[in-house]
């Protein structure tokens, strides 16, 4: 299990690679421009089944999106910190 942090938008090839290498039970957290994945209709097809997807709420709403628009779970900074506390292995 690992935590993968994706900070670059879907326009960046490296973000897609990070999603490809995610394994079942991994958690992926989208932050900064990475939150644009949260409105990508295909976001769940970009990862293997069993990968948990999250986006940082603060970065998401700052870019003009409504919380309802997110296709993944939105997390606060507190919840993001908790995810980090629970995952010793960080890929970022």
């Amino acid at each position, binding site marked *: 299990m690992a935590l993968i*942090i994706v*900070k*670059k938008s879907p326009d960046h090839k*490296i973000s897609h690679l990070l999603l490809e290498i995610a394994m079942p039970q991994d958690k992926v957290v989208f*932050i*900064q*421009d990475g939150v644009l994945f949260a409105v990508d209709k295909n976001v769940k097809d970009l990862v293997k089944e069993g990968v948990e997807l999250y986006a940082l709420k*603060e*970065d998401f709403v700052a870019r003009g999106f409504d919380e309802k628009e997110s296709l993944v779970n939105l997390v606060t*900074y*507190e919840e*993001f*910190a908790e995810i*980090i*506390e629970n995952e*010793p292995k*960080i890929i*970022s």
Partner: protein
Amino acid sequence: MIITIQTNVPPYTNEDLDTAIHLAEVFLARGHKVNIFLFADSVLSANKFVKPMRIDRNIPMKLQELISKGVEVHICGLCAEYRGLTEEMKIEGSKFSGVPEMAALIYESDRYINLMP
């Protein structure tokens, strides 16, 4: 826990320092020991001569506040030389380190968060 955050890109131009500072504040409030390692162009964040517009945040000052709350701010020394950041310019309490200190932080930290360039 010991938690280290590494940044690599310049402040203001990018959001990374804002992310790092916010995360550091949250981890501090949750009782952790926090370190920030400023690598490559992110060393600029520790330049006390940075003078943002009045309506903008002051990132070096925010780092200094974190230092006063116990956060260690490491500046990659060779990176600083490459950016013309000298001893007199750095914010109080920050320290010039190198990759050996980065290694020590990676080794000691329970969590090591890199914000990729």
